[in-house]
Structure formats: C-alpha cells, structure tokens
C-alpha cells in the first residue's frame, strides 16, 4: 500500500463520517452511527492481529470488558475522571495482553483460538460473579464523560446522539490512521511477513514472538478503548460486553468485510451493526440470519466483502 493510498482511505472514511448525517431522518441514526464507529474501532484492532500478524483471538471481548468496566468502576471507587478511566483501562488491557500473550501466542490455529476464548470467558465470568463490585449480571451505571456539557458551556449545543456520533467518529479516524501507519512501518511489514510464513520470517531475522505479542497488545488496546466508548455512550455496562458472543461478533465483522484492510473490516462493522437494527422487525430470525451470513460469506467470499468486490471490479476492467 502506498502512502497515497493511505490518505485516500482516511479521506474516504472522514468524508463518509462527515457527510452521512445529512441523510439522517432522525436522531436514532446518530446512535446507530456511533455504535458502528465503536465496533469498527475494535475491529481495526483485529485487523492488526488477524490481518497483519495472522493470529486469531476469540477472546477480544475480554479486553472490551476491561475497558468498559474501567469506565464504570474507577470513577465510582477511585474518583477518577472517566476520560482518565479510558486510559487506565487501555493500560490495564495492554498489561494483561502482554502477560497472557507471552505463553498463549506460542500456540497456533485452533489451540490459540481456544486459549484466547478461555481468557475471554474468564473475564466475563469475573464480571458476572463479583456482584459486590460489578453489579453482577444486571450490570452497573457509568458516569457521564462530561465533554458534552463542556462543549455546551462553550456555546456548542449538541444532542447526545450527535455528540457521540462525532466523538466516536473522530476516535475511529485516529485509530484507522494509526493502523494504516503501522501497516507501512517496518513493524507492520515484519508482521505481514510472519503472516506469510513464520519460519521464513524468522530466517530473515524477524523476532516472531515479539511481533506477535506486539500485535496482540495493540489489538487489545483497540478493543479496550472501544469497550470504554461503548460504556460511556450507553452510560451503562453489563457483562455481555465481555461475552463470548461479542468476541465472535468482532471476529466475524473483521472477516466479513475483509480482515486484510482497515476499510474492509470497517465495512464488516457497518453491516453487522446495521443487520440487527434492521432485523428488530423480525427479531426472532436474528440469530438465524447472522449464522447464515457468516457461513455464506466465508464460503463464497473467503477474502471478505471489500477485497472480493475490489477484485471483481478490477477484473472487469473498471
């Protein structure tokens, strides 16, 4: 990817985020938009892990849970500002990822999938069982970020939906920018090399273990920040945020759109976030359709939607 390509992708994303509200018929769409951005942020983290470094994780919701509960717990118990809580959560996630990543990333394929899955389940179990601290399965309230009232004091009136749409949109852009820069950097190139062949990468001097760990930590921070944003936006958290299904959802979004590219994976987030919104009309069928989509895409578009579409366009001489 050339650096021009990088700016095209970022520009496209920025324009989309800025222009879309013009077509929103109601405030509800801002909420859905913000939700999409938060999911896309987590999914970009997985692009680094799965797409660049070629490692899978079925436990990333665990990090989202850490981020989300950091925002819920630290303002209440330590009196920290929620903004600081986001960073604290991200740091905690990074440390956790570094600690568990070291032994776990020695594993491959299914073993790695299940080991990470085990981690995610442990996190959600702690969040569910430690009622005294986390409110158990019912969840707990999250303090207001306070940024919106600050903006209002400065004379900029935004509805909650508008504020979270813009705020998560900006964070998403920052996240995409970092991931795209990483792609082009020596670290990113080395990661992609080990994706191709670990042995080949090792023979040309790539420190495979260190790079895998770095990708794991980076993606954990993305998931954690996304979890924090989700908690702040909803002003409420439940252990579901760390649940197995959420992990699966994240990986599916990434793979659905195309795990090799930031823009593609974001498309996956758009589709899988919108789908349940559309399907609420017939909520009964939601799981059925979700499962079918996962299977069909994997069989017919194994590279993901965006790369497959791009290839088809190029193939027909567009």
């Amino acid at each position: 990817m050339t650096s021009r390509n990088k700016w095209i992708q970022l520009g496209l994303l920025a324009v989309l985020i800025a222009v879309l509200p013009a077509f929103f018929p109601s405030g509800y769409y801002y909420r859905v938009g913000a939700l999409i951005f938060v999911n896309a942020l987590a999914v970009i983290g997985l692009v680094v892990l799965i797409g660049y470094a070629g490692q899978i994780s079925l436990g990333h919701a665990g990090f989202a849970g850490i981020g989300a509960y950091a925002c819920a717990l630290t303002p209440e118990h330590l009196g920290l500002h929620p903004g600081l809580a986001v960073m604290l959560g991200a740091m905690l996630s990074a440390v956790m990822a570094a600690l568990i990543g070291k032994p776990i990333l020695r594993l491959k394929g299914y073993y790695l999938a299940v080991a990470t899955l085990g981690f995610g389940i442990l996190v959600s179990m702690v969040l569910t069982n430690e009622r005294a601290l986390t409110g158990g399965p019912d969840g707990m309230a999250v303090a207001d970020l306070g940024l919106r009232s600050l903006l209002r004091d400065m004379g900029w009136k935004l509805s909650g939906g508008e504020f979270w749409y813009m705020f998560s949109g900006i964070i998403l852009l920052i996240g995409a920018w970092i991931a795209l820069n990483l792609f082009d950097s020596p670290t990113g190139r080395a990661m992609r090399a080990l994706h191709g062949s670990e042995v080949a990468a090792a023979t040309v001097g790539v420190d495979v273990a260190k790079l895998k760990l770095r990708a794991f930590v980076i993606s954990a921070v993305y998931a954690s920040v996304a979890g924090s944003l989700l908690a702040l936006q909803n002003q409420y958290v439940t252990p579901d945020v760390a649940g197995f299904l959420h992990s699966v959802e994240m990986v599916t979004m990434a793979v659905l759109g195309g795990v090799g590219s930031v823009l593609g994976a974001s498309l996956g987030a758009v589709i899988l976030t919108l789908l349940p919104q559309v399907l609420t009309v017939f909520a009964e069928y939601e799981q059925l359709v979700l499962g079918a989509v996962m299977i069909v895409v994997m069989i017919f578009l194994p590279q993901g939607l965006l790369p497959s579409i791009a290839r088809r366009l190029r193939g027909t001489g567009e």
Partner: protein
Amino acid sequence: MDALLQFIFSGLTVGAVYALVALGFTIIYNASDVVNFAQGEFVMLGGMITVFAFEAGLPLPLAAVIAVLVTAAIGVALNKLAIEPARGAPVVSLIIITIGASILIRGAAQLVFDKQLHRFPSFSGDDPIAIFGATILPQSLWVIGGAIAVFVGLWLFFTHTLTGKAVLATANNRLAAQLVGINTGWVMTLSFGLSAAIGALAGVLVTPITLVSYDVGVALALKGFAAAMLGGMGNPKGALLGGLLLGLFEALTAGYLSSQYKDAMAFIVILGVLFVMPQGIFGKKTTERV
C-alpha cells in the same frame, strides 16, 4: 469421605457427557481437520427433539431414536452445505463457518421449539441409589454406561470393520487413502453423521438430569473441546479420559472451592495443560514441515 464420593459421582456423570462431546470433536477432526464448534448444538438437538417428540405422544425410546437420526441428518447437511464447499479454507474461516453454523442451529431451534427449559422422565425412575454413604441417580448410570458403550462401539468399529479402517486411513493421510480407493468425501459425511449422532445421544441421556434449552450448546461445545484438548486432540482415548478428568475436576472445584468459578477453574487447567504439554495427554508430537 462421603462428600468426596458424592463429588466423584457427579463429576463422572458430567464428565461422561463431556467425553461424548469430545469424541464427536475427535471423529470430525480426524476425518477433516475441522474443529466443529457446532458440536454442542448436536447435544442440544438430541435433547430438544426427544422432548418435543415425546410430548407429541411418541413413546420415549422411539422419540430418542428419532432425535438421534434427525440430528445425524443435520450433521450430514452441515458437512455437505457448509464444510465441503469451503474445502481448503484457512483455519480462521473454518472456525467462523462452524461458529456460524452453531448460531444458525441455535436460532432455528429457538424458532422451531421455544426458549423454555425442558426435560422428560428418567429412564429408570428418580430414586437415588445409595453406595457407601453417597448416592447416585439411576440416570447417571445411564449416562456413564452410555459413554462407555459408545466408546466400546467406536473401538470395535475402527478396529474390526473395513469402513472404520477407511476412516482411520483418511485421518492418517487423506491423499494416500484416496490413492488406495477410499472415498474420502464419503468418509467425511459419515464422520459428521456419526459425531452428530453421538452428540445427540449424549443429549438424550443427560436431559433428565440437567434439562435442556435451545442455548445449552455453547457451554457444552467449549467443555467438550477443552476435554478433547486435554486428552490430546484427535485421540478417542484422550477424549474419554479428558472428558472424565474435566468433569471430576469441575465437580471437585465446585465442591471444595467455589461453585461460581467451577467453569473458570476448568479453563485455567486447560490453559495450564496447553502451556505445559500442548499436545495433550495422549497427543502425538508433530513436527511442522516447511
């Protein structure tokens, strides 16, 4: 001492179910190198279909047979519609496909049946049998006996029948099996049907004790997979031993430490095993060729 024996009984009962799920994983993994995350759904289907056939007025044994057959057919359909078309796909894709299948089956079960908890009567009554100061349910004996019967049956199948040997050959080397005239596509179909049937049987046996609802599959699949890994992925003996060990460990953790965290402890042990001996108890060491 009585308490310990009691924990061992309950551990062996759940352990036998995990072992059956793990056996299902093993059979499919051997034939196709696919880890089927929808394995837990087969257990759920076995229980659910039996419940509804029984409530529709069929005698229990007939309802159970129908449940096993229908589930086996669903297993075959899963292979034909989702696994075979994705032949050669990377592991991540296969993981997503089978997870997608499990979500799809769960969604369908929720539509066709309902979201309630169900059970049907135990096969030979609910009077607990007293043994050395502890008690065991007759149904638990059915579960443990069922697991042993399935294991012995599979062993005979793999060692004494030509079809069984064809499955082993395919597991060992797919290309070589094809070269000596084994229809490996058919072996895969057979494996999916067989492991779905075993899963369904587990569901039929255990439903009177643990009850069944449309969403019990996820936890069972995870435990079954953990058991298979503990014993050594792809090894039937390992699946049996891994399942029983995991069940015992869970029951002892629940009894002596914390019932809330019994599932957590199971995972911690699995992670520990993975780090110390990634191939599991019976797994063979493989070297990756490049």
